[in-house]
């Protein structure tokens, strides 16, 4: 709407996200490149959560392992999203742990689905290293870790 950064901030304060925007401004985790990460992590939270909720309710018996893993990945994504928005040193450290966990999850599940496809009659977000999701699941934790490291120095 405007090119004036001050006016943009005022608009943000007027909105519902006032508290969030201010706390993020304090630490900068959800600002700049972090804003893009918040969006992508938000998308993946919704994607993994809605997928696992639907599948756990509608077709649990078909592939319980895959659906439970989807639910776990949704929880990890949700936690990282919240940490990025909240900001602060504690949240940054927690997010680093979760990003590492996420990377480990993608690599483990990715290898597992290739090594033993019969354990996974249905797909998860992390199947085949996230191939069904344009490989974003494997790039996201790496980018997240890089950004979280840089956010401390900057």
């Amino acid at each position, binding site marked *: *709407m405007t*090119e004036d950064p001050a006016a*943009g901030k005022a*608009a943000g304060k007027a*909105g519902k996200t006032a508290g969030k925007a201010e706390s993020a401004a304090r630490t900068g985790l959800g*600002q700049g490149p972090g*804003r893009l990460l918040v*969006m992508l992590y*938000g998308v993946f939270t919704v994607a993994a959560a809605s997928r696992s909720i639907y599948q756990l309710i509608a077709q649990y018996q078909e592939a319980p392992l895959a659906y439970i893993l989807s639910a776990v990945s949704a929880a990890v994504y949700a936690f990282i999203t919240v940490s990025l928005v909240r900001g602060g040193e504690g949240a940054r450290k927690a997010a680093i742990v979760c990003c590492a966990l996420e990377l480990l999850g993608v690599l483990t599940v990715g290898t597992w689905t290739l090594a033993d496809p019969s354990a996974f009659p249905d797909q998860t977000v992390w199947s085949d290293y996230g191939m069904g999701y*344009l490989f974003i699941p494997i790039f996201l934790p790496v980018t997240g870790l890089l950004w979280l490291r840089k956010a401390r120095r900057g």
Partner: protein
Amino acid sequence: MIDALTVALGVTALLLAAWCGFAAYRDQPTKDWHFIGMAVVALLAVVQLVIGVVRLAGGDDPQQGVAIFVAYLIGSALAVPIAAFMSLTERTRWGSATVSAAAVVLAVLEVRLYDIWGGVGG
């Protein structure tokens, strides 16, 4: 009708992604014209949501289930407005990059919607 709209929405979403991606590349925040573009795409997505629900109420049955169809309709209606608000409070190139990424997500949702509806007829 809904197939044509899905294709149109997918194409306009990609155009929006390219446009905002270009702004990010040139180190510019989103401007008035970008927001007008976002409004057009968001409006199309809302129209799609309404038509989709009307078609469901009229007795049509998406190939891959009603619940998934409605979830994707709602998701695609929300994607661009949320990104627009995020870029309002991020007046840098990264605000533009965020909108661009959300538009790509919307395009992917449209491809999935096309499959979910059944891909033919409609």
